[in-house]
């Protein structure tokens, strides 16, 4: 199964519900999807292409466009190893009420990544069983109330 096939199939199946799947370069496909359709798309790619292995979850902050983007990188892992293909799901999230469904019901391995993204970006993952402090220290809320370090408006000392 090659990239063009996947792109066509995704476009056929979801049409307007997702942004146009885009082939960045070899083995890299990016799909933008609104959070309402995220779970459907995630189930579909997992069942159809057997992308059973979530590599990373990360957040990006775009203050000018007033949004966060949650990025999932997925690939397929079989007994004989990885598939070189990496599918990227991008989920734009409103910056004022950053909430998105958690994909933990589909990929168990996103648990810690989502927890980290919640902590460093303040993006709420609905349905995540344990959104607790992970990397930051216990007194963070007293030191920097309502601030999240990886957001662009959190400035370091020499900026």
């Amino acid at each position: 199964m090659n990239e063009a096939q996947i792109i066509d199939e995704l476009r056929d199946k979801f049409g307007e519900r997702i942004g146009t799947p885009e082939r960045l370069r070899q083995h890299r496909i990016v799909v933008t999807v609104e959070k309402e359709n995220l779970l459907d798309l995630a189930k579909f790619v997992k069942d159809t292409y057997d992308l059973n292995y979530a590599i990373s979850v990360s957040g990006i902050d775009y203050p000018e466009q007033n949004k966060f983007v949650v990025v999932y990188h997925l690939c397929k892992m079989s007994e004989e190893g990885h598939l070189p293909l990496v599918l990227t799901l991008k989920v734009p999230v409103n910056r004022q009420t950053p909430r998105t469904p958690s994909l933990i019901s589909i990929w168990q391995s996103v648990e810690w990544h989502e927890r980290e993204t919640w902590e460093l970006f303040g993006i709420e993952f609905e349905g995540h069983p344990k959104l607790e402090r992970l990397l930051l220290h216990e007194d963070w809320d007293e030191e920097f109330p309502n601030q999240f370090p990886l957001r662009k408006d959190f400035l370091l000392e020499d900026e």
Partner: protein
Amino acid sequence: MSSMYFSVGPQHPGSGHFRMKITLQGDIILNAEPDPGFVHRSVEKIAETREYLQNVPLIERQCLSDVSSVTLAYAMGIEELLGIEVPPRAQYIRVIMCELSRIMSHLYWLAILGIFVGHSTMFMWGFGDRDILITETAEKIAGARVSYSYIIPGGVRYDLPDGIKEHTMKTLDYFQGRLKEYDAIFFSNPIFKRRTKGVGVLSRSEAIRLGVTGPTLRGSGVRGDIRKDAPYAAYDELDFEIPVYSEGDSYSRSLVRFREMKISSSIIRQAFENLPEGDFKVKTRKKVPEGEVFSRVEAARGELACYLISDGTRKPYRLKMSTPSFRNLPGFSLMKGSMLADMPPIYMSLDYWPLETDR
């Protein structure tokens, strides 16, 4: 029976800069919850405030026992965005450095595993050989013992020095002999086998489900290795095998790393034999064009992915390192139901490196 709660670490001989919250009932661990974050130094945030080249020493600090692979993932990302082709000589030198740092990291792991199961000689031998053999070779090539910032976008910083091939070959010959001795005193030791065999079993499907990576995955019978599956640098031109053990216990995970040291030294030999002539570096620009890139390498502890977003300036817009130790965090659930004495072997068989998790 009531249960007992205690935390192992950050000051505990059986932990690094890291804490495990253990709930114990009798001698059985009911629950083991990792608590990372003791070395969260905000590498990803600082990286947004520094230029691309300045970030090389910064990001290599997140895994000081395995610096080459970390910087390689980052450099590959920038090269892909710039659209430049790295000269083949640089690719081979990168392979040499990556495998050296893989051996370095595995020896570090072996030493700590030794002391964790109470074998202080393995600790000393592991560290001593790491020092005399591997860090010295790395120092001869790159100029520093552990933090050499040698792999930079566009190639490597210097060419190989004269006579390094002979030195490395001699070192590797000696190292082969030492590996046999490790096998004799440690891996064949019946007590060590008794302590690790059947301890912390991670089945194949569970390993994929939890998303663990690297030797932890290969110890469970999955042949997942980026060097073979999505070759980078010069790995597609070299001949090597991937050790896989299907038992999924602490012993097979340990054996994977032990075999990998041997295979790494053969890769270094091949790389030196096939080393092409030519440039070791190409010129790069300071401004990186807009775009995003997701580069993956196989670090010593597993797949290391670098997600880089550039907005066309001199500084990265966002840099995310998806590190193998972070992805092995779910592996701590293996401790549930095992005995307190099994905690150190399971912990070490995951080869957990807190700095890499916290970044």
